[in-house]
């Protein structure tokens, strides 16, 4: 639902309790199941058939026919994101530049073409990937595919449109900060990763965007938008042989121009004490907070197991965190936890919000509940339930052409394969109680926790100081993606 339609209803649970994004794993050997565990059969689900091929220029394609509705999704993934920013926000702004007109056609002309077909064309940049995606009726493939290629390869040099984009983006950063929920992750990322590239806010800051020029975007485009650094997923209602011919025609002429240089990511900062970033929002009527620390990368062999353990802690309605903070105490509308994985590192975070007066009570209860992972551990019945839940909720994540195109792009970006889908159920089923203890002790951050609190700082500063070394910032101050 969009921001607008959301205001017309009240929902029981805000957002999805599960982690955003798909999960990755490598060879996690299935271990013998616990003698008294009972496995729930949730039906079988496997990767739909697809074809992969690569052009001489290094550009790779994934083609997956799906015929439930007469639509096609195209998703181009370029291996470059906020970690590649030479100046904060360059990757993001480059992705938006693509939409300002291409191949001599103006922004307005392209928008008119796309809308008239009922189609959509979107671009975005994340931490490690930039994306261009299009969604249209299958009968319009001959109009949309060439347009898609032009937009990706040949953005116009339109200074007037660039200036307008920059003005909208700078103002948008201030708008974002009107909603604590929308921006708290940016503060947390920076708190944990500091000056490491993973600390970069994809959105940039209003100061960095103000200093950006179109030539800097062009330089970024030249450096990373190359066929050897890109993969394109095509999912939907098409004939594979015909589609292949069309794709070759559209992209065979694309040339690599430079050697690729990716940033050094191995040196992660170490966290030697607990710190609290206290973000002052003077008119706040509640306190929004995140607690956590380093997590795991997406190719971690234990990723599926960690998903199951996190489901028990804070990944579903009956999770410990939601049960304690919402159901038992009425302190909040929702409490959850999750891993945010990147290619070479990641985050773990507990997140919730509560009225100002119960700020300390909610933080203490979250910490106490989190400590159960070590003090009490997981019982067999709860593990069995979490396994059923994780398996049962898995297939709908890969139901639409858009979801499947996203999965194929993630496979290209993070280097995993079909076994992610095809072995998921067996890996979940194989998780034992002993394994959960190992996962808890190995991966969940127990010491030197990091905190972000957004609220009325004058009223909660004393509480914040109980949890670590406090740094106070104004939410309206530039920085942290604003």
């Amino acid at each position, binding site marked *: 639902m969009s921001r*607008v339609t959301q*205001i017309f209803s009240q929902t*029981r649970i805000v957002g999805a309790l599960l982690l955003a994004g798909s999960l990755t794993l490598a060879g996690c050997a299935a271990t013998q199941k616990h003698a008294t565990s009972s496995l729930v059969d949730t039906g079988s689900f496997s990767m739909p058939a697809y074809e992969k091929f690569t052009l001489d220029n290094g550009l790779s394609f994934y083609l997956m026919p799906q*015929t439930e509705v007469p639509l096609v999704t195209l998703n181009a993934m370029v291996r470059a994101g906020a970690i590649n920013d030479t100046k904060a926000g360059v990757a993001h702004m480059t992705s938006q530049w693509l939409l300002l007109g291409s191949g001599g056609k103006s922004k307005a002309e392209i928008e008119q073409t796309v809308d008239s077909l009922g189609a959509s064309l979107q671009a975005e940049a994340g931490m490690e990937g930039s994306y261009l995606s299009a969604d249209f009726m299958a009968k319009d493939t001959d109009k949309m595919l060439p347009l898609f290629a032009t937009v990706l390869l040949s953005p116009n040099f339109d200074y007037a449109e660039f200036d307008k984009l920059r003005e*909208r983006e700078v103002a948008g950063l201030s708008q974002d900060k009107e909603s604590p929920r929308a921006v708290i992750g940016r503060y947390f990322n920076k708190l944990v990763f500091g000056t490491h590239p993973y600390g970069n806010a994809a959105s940039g800051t209003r100061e960095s965007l103000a200093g950006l020029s179109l030539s800097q975007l062009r330089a970024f485009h030249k450096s990373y938008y190359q066929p050897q650094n890109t993969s394109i997923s095509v999912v939907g209602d098409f004939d594979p042989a015909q589609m292949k011919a069309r794709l070759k025609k559209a992209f065979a002429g694309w040339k690599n121009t430079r050697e690729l240089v990716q940033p050094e990511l191995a040196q992660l900062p170490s966290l030697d004490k607990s710190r609290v970033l206290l973000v002052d929002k003077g008119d706040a009527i509640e306190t929004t907070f995140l607690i956590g620390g380093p997590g795991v990368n997406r190719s971690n062999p234990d990723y599926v197991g960690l998903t199951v353990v996190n489901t028990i802690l804070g990944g579903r309605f009956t999770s410990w965190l939601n049960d304690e903070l919402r159901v038992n105490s009425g302190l909040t509308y929702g409490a959850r936890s999750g891993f945010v994985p990147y290619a070479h590192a990641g985050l773990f975070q507990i997140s919730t919000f509560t009225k100002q007066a119960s700020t300390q009570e909610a933080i203490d209860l979250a910490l106490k509940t989190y400590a159960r992972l070590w003090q009490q551990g997981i019982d067999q019945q709860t593990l069995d339930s979490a396994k059923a*839940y994780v398996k049962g909720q898995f297939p709908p994540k890969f139901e639409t052409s858009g979801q499947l195109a996203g999965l194929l792009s993630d496979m290209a970006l993070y280097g995993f394969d079909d076994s992610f889908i095809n072995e998921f159920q067996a890996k979940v089923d194989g998780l034992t109680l002993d394994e959960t203890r190992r996962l808890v002790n190995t991966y969940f951050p127990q010491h030197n926790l990091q905190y972000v609190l957004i609220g009325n700082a004058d009223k909660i500063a004393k509480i914040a100081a109980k949890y670590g070394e406090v740094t106070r910032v104004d939410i309206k101050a530039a920085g942290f993606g604003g």
Partner: protein
Amino acid sequence: MKFSFSALLLSMGLLAAPGAAQATTAADIQSFTLDNGMKIMVLEDGSIPNANMYLFWKVGSRNEVPGITGISHFFEHMMFNGSKKYGPKMFDRTMEAAGGANNAYTTEDMTVYTDWFPANALETMFDLEADRIANLDINQTMVDSERGVVASERTTGLENSNWRTLQEELKGVAFRAHPYSWPVIGHESDIAAWTLDDLVQYHKTYYAPNNAVMVVSGDVKFDEVKRLADKYLAPIPPQAPPARVRTVEPQQKGERRVFVQKASVSTPNVMLAYHVPASSNADYYALDLLSAILSQGKSSRLYRGLVDKQVALEAEAYLPMSLDPNLFYIMGVASPGVAATKLEQALLTQIKAIARDGVTKDELEKVKNIKLMEFYHAMETINGKANTLGTYELYFGSYDKLFNAPKAYNQLTPADIQRVAQTYLTKANRTVAVLAATEEADL
């Protein structure tokens, strides 16, 4: 580019090209009605080994009165808090242990419960739903802790959404008589005050099988759904139909205005709302396309006229489906340095242009294609199918109206769009709401 809804009608016919995708058709849906009055629709779809169960209850904030505002939504929460067979917490625990998940939502008109599960857990879902419909056990302790949850839900909505903050105030001014006047979540004082007895009465009145519609979609068989419905739901007795909502909003006789101050707002937000008929009125389709012409896509009137001109950072139109006459919303967020009055005038300029000059044929064809894409996207998932079918059943009286909608849209001409703009988007019929960090001083 001369594509229209006729393509959809073709795709629903029998002569689709071999191998070509074919979206859901009316013939794919089977339905039956139990003796107790509950209508059940089934859509078999084995594309994933999952299914869902959507229960649409004909109760929302329109059925409330002052003193119990928000109780429909609060009740939605209480439906998860214990019944005879499955006590407190057991609904969610049982569902999740079977691999299922759920959510629920409440609007001005209805309360909808959504269960998503591996298809082989179908019987567990029937057992859970039947138990809470027939034997809800409202527990005072659960009422007390749930009050805190809903108070937090209200607060976090206001903290994080300027639109919600503004819309709440606007509705209170646009409606002075009809229950659409108050927010779905209710007034803060009512959330703190409703009683156990209020809740018991509410359940008895509205949670009767004759006041509900169920949709099951996914990897299920019709005969099995029918068998389980007979076993679990058929024994639940019907109740006397709820009293109808009597109040009709008096005609508005002149523009109304409201201002809301919120210190953290960086630029003014402006929301306009015009009274329009219920969705069952023939003008619904023209108003819906008018809304799309105004705000869908970057070639829309509001994007071209406001966002592209750096007057607004975003601008939207929205027409909710509605059982009673409701509002047509148009809203914008000002660009830096743009005053609320300038943004308001810019929005009005776009409305006036359509009322005066109409829309083009190309614009109309464009939004028909956008509507067709929306239909395909809804039919792409089992959840989209279930939610859309149930919604049409409630707002238009029958799910097969969904499949008539393409024809209704396709018949519209530019003159129809201009006529509804002239009829409804008038000064005397509107409420203007402004949200900003500071209120302008008196002259």
